[in-house]
């Protein structure tokens, strides 16, 4: 018999999918659901049978795009299972299951196989005592300190809080079971609603003065689905835009090229809240978009709620994909493209068949970050007042907690974490598996850059350039507002340019008014202290991970230090809230009054420093780790060989050598700490006098007094200035070209 291939795979999936659909037509609802689950399970088994019959799993494993597809399918099915989607949604999942089955079972089979061959042979020949002694041989006092410090800090301030959220989420409500919270969060209409509340995404409203307005809203499927839909759309669109911009900038050299590359990064300047607020203004009846739509349709355009969040996030996050994709395209070995052309492929065909698949891991890394960032984002939801998102629900849960958080909120946090972490780990695995694609195999390395033809030039100047400029508008707007050049008239729905008497009024106010300056000072102190902690952590973790030759331990430490990237900030906020409340109950009142979030004397600064140092650790670690990897191990071994102890080697020989990497990491960490939102605004509300800058921005951007937006914009400008200074130092002093953000 012929071994089964993709044809059999697709056919089986199709049959299963159609069966499910027929079931929903022919049977009554409860029977149909039962039937569909049976078909689902069968189609997973079908994958197993295909594998046994000789389906070539390696066809998927070693393909760049097929592996990527299985990850996407995996996430989709996970979500469908969690939320209990029925009908067509479920039928699609069922149809894709054989493919997933083959991938999962194939990789399991391989792992088990590997395990067997290893354990059977050599391991058994070395005595356990000897193996333990070999481990301890590497652990001198410095290594011990690094490892204990790294593990202790990350376990206590990252793992424990998250485990507490997990445990807490299983607390049954009165009369409920241990799973009730999850049932509520995943299966009740309050959270998951496949039949939307307001079904019309675009509404046309007639105004009393005779003009009309188009309101773009989106469809509300309940917070859990909304978050997923928003994150999926944002990721897809941001990725598409990011790839196009990156490809054009990486491959075509046209006048103003360098300026374009720099301008495209402007949206990365992080100005919480005010940024989304400006986007909201741009897409309102007072903004430039409405001028265009009025001339086309006669109606203004306004974006609201979900649609607003989506557009704001796309514009803010697309440069993350752009940066990663740009690096990935630059790193594609040009000879692979030349070979394709040499064999007759042209233009788009080369891109689709060679360049894109080879750059996919890098792009996927950027996309995953966008996915996670979109899920955990609070800025856009708050500005657009969109309460039907997981992140907003958790935020509400914490600020309304008064000492007791609802376990249902914790369950929401667990779901958010589960989705973000799964996506992150799957892609990380995928990317690390393919990193060999980035390795040059010798030969000349001439990036393929050419002058664009007429079509190319049109694409650049009519497509990419306007896009880049448009994406910069929020940052430009923030600066203009802070200088008083752009005035907002909310009543009349107008934005006007004016010549201010003193453009620095608001910036001066920031520094002169002690009640505002306090927030800036708080941020600087917290971020400063956290950065010092994070640098020590990063050195401990980076050094142990790059030098320790022991099984598992370095990997675990590495995973712990990287995972804050994938853990939504609100989950941290939840975790710290629960942890410190619990501590407050255990410890004697003299201490508990200070650390319990419910008490008046609560010292919020402790939490800010801990949260900043843990949440932004990955950025610091990555830079420091890159430094350690730059240092050839023999440089270190020579010093030890000459009698220097590990402590002297690390601090005397290696650190001076990689100080640039350490400082870069510290500065990048500082930027992200200064703009941290999730824990800042949740705990800032509890102890306002200790709150950082971002809390102030959240409180006052709507501006009851009329000055609010201007002052917040002034803070945004201040943040932009800090970030700009740091970026300039990084680029010109430390020569770190792409150090800003990425996986």
């Amino acid at each position, binding site marked *: 018999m012929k071994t089964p291939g993709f044809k059999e795979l697709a056919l089986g999936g199709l049959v299963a999918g159609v069966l499910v659909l027929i079931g929903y037509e022919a049977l009554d609802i409860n029977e149909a659901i039962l039937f569909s689950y049976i078909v689902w399970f069968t189609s997973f088994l079908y994958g197993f049978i295909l594998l046994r019959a000789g389906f070539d799993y390696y066809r998927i494993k070693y393909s760049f795009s097929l592996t990527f597809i299985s990850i996407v399918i995996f996430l989709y099915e996970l979500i469908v299972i969690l939320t209990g989607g029925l009908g067509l949604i479920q039928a699609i999942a069922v149809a894709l299951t054989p493919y997933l089955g083959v991938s999962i079972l194939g990789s399991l089979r391989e792992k088990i196989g590997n395990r067997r061959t290893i354990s059977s042979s*050599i391991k058994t*020949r070395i005595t356990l005592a000897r*193996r333990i*002694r070999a481990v301890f041989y590497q652990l001198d006092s410095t290594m011990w300190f690094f490892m204990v410090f790294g593990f202790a800090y990350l376990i206590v301030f990252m793992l424990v809080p998250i485990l507490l959220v997990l445990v807490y989420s299983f607390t049954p409500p009165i009369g409920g079971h241990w799973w009730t919270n999850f049932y509520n969060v995943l299966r009740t209409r309050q959270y998951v609603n496949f039949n939307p509340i307001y079904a019309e995404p675009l509404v046309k409203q007639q105004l009393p003065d005779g003009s009309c307005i188009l309101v773009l809203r989106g469809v509300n499927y309940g917070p859990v689905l909304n978050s997923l839909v928003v994150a999926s759309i944002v990721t897809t669109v941001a990725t598409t835009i990011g790839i196009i911009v990156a490809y054009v900038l990486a491959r075509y050299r046209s006048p103003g090229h360098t300026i374009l590359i720099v301008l495209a990064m402007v949206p990365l300047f992080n100005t919480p809240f005010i940024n989304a607020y400006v986007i909201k203004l741009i897409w309102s009846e007072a903004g430039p978009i409405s001028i265009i739509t009025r001339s086309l349709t006669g109606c203004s355009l306004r974006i609201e709620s979900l649609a607003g969040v989506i557009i704001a996030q796309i514009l803010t996050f697309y440069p993350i994909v752009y940066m990663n994709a740009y690096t990935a395209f630059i790193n594609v070995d040009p000879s692979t493209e030349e070979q394709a052309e040499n064999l007759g492929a042209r233009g788009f065909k080369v891109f689709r068949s060679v360049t894109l698949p080879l750059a996919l891991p890098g792009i996927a890394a950027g996309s995953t970050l966008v996915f996670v960032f979109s899920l955990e984002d609070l800025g856009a939801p708050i500005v657009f007042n969109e309460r039907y998102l997981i992140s907003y629900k958790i935020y509400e849960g914490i600020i309304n907690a008064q000492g007791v958080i609802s376990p249902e909120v914790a369950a929401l946090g667990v779901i958010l974490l589960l989705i973000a972490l799964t996506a992150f780990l799957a892609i990380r695995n995928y990317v690390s598996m393919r990193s060999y694609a980035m390795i040059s195999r010798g030969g000349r390395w001439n990036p393929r850059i050419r002058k664009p033809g007429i079509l190319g030039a049109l694409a650049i100047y009519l497509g990419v350039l306007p896009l880049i400029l448009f994406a910069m508008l929020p940052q430009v707007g923030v600066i203009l507002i802070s200088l008083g050049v752009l005035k907002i008239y909310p009543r009349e729905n107008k934005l006007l340019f004016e010549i201010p008497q003193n453009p620095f009024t608001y910036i001066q106010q920031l520094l002169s008014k002690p009640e505002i300056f306090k927030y800036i000072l708080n941020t600087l102190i917290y971020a400063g202290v956290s950065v010092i902690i994070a640098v020590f952590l990063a050195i401990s973790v980076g050094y142990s991970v790059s030098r320790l030759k022991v099984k598992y331990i370095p990997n675990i430490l590495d995973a712990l230090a990287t995972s804050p990237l994938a853990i939504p900030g609100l989950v941290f906020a939840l975790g710290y809230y629960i942890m410190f409340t619990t501590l407050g109950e255990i410890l004697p009142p003299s201490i508990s009054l200070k650390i319990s979030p419910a008490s008046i004397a609560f010292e919020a600064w402790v939490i800010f420093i801990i949260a900043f140092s843990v949440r932004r650790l990955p950025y610091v670690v990555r830079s420091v780790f890159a430094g350690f990897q730059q240092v050839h191990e023999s*440089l270190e071994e*020579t010093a030890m*060989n000459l*009698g*220097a102890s590990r402590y002297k080697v690390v601090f005397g020989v290696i650190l001076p050598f990689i100080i640039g990497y350490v400082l870069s990491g510290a500065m990048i960490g500082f930027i992200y700490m200064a703009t941290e939102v999730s824990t800042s605004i949740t705990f800032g509300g509890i102890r306002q006098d200790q709150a950082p800058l971002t809390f102030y921005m959240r409180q006052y951007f709507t501006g009851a007094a009329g000055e609010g937006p201007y002052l917040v914009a002034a803070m945004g400008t201040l943040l932009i200035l800090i970030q700009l200074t740091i970026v300039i130092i990084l680029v010109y002093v430390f020569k770190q070209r792409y150090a800003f953000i990425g996986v």
Partner: protein
Amino acid sequence: MTRVTLENISKYYGNVVAVEDVSLKVEKGEFFTILGPSGCGKTTTLRIIAGFEVPDKGKVYFDDEDVTFLKPYKRNTAMVFQNYALWPHMTVYENVAYGLKIKRKELGLTEEEIKKRVEWALELVKLKGFENRYPLQLSGGQQQRVALARALVVQPRVLLLDEPLSNLDAKLRIEMREELKRLQRSLGITTIYVTHDQLEAMSMSDRIAVMNRGRVVQAGTPKELYFKPRSIFVADFLGRSSIYRGLVLEQSGYEVKVQLEDSNLVLKGIALEEKLPPKVAVVIRPEVIKIGEDAEPGDIVVKGILEFAMFTGEKIEGRLRIHNLKLLIYLPGYMDVSVGSELTITIPWRNTVILPIKE
């Protein structure tokens, strides 16, 4: 001066055998080389001696002291790495002085004494006057000397050299070979040298251990290894040779008569063991073959067709076809020969080695 002893050392990386059951004795003041193809475990063995790796089995002794689990910074070995591992952010002086400064208290050295010793070391490697340069300002050969000075200045118990010459160009390599040998002789320091270059190994070493697939296949003086290889691997790896399979016809003492496989030729040769298995290999080095007829009893004289010739300057490397055997021969460089011509040669039996084939 220190004697280094390895006792049944094994090292595994996951499922890969790096070193398997290696036992070696390096005498005081000896220049000892570990020779083998890449991936044979020679560098791992060196790193175990330096203490960068701990063996999974076995023990390492310096004189009578068990140092298997002694930290690298307490062993007082000095290693020169293949890439020199100079610290690019320190000057030549700082690089060389590093080891002394670290051990300053222990050795009770003053700043002045350190300076004197660094000067001594730099003079030794002929780099006086380069104290204030940075490594990146130096040529490959100079960098290599700095690395050597840095190792020698601490007066180590053992000097460890990991392919130190492999990054130099051909001429410089020969120069440094002499230089190293001279230094080692004059200082009388126990030296363990790792290389894959058999010429380097043969020309410098007192003794050589040949490694393959993690094991020591043979250890001995260069001459022993070259003329009395105990395995086909050693015969093949050191120098060049023609190797044939054959069956033992008769053996009396160390003299053996062998019927070659795929040929009616019968050769006489010398075995290194008294009882050979029936299946053996015959090793003939090209430089022992005499051109023309010049036989003593037991030698054989054969005719063959020159199939291929390559002029290298000092000699002509040729391949002679004798029936269906191919034999590697060397002809004098000045000789006029043309491919396709017939040649008569003599194979001396005293220089023909018969080795057992171990299945």
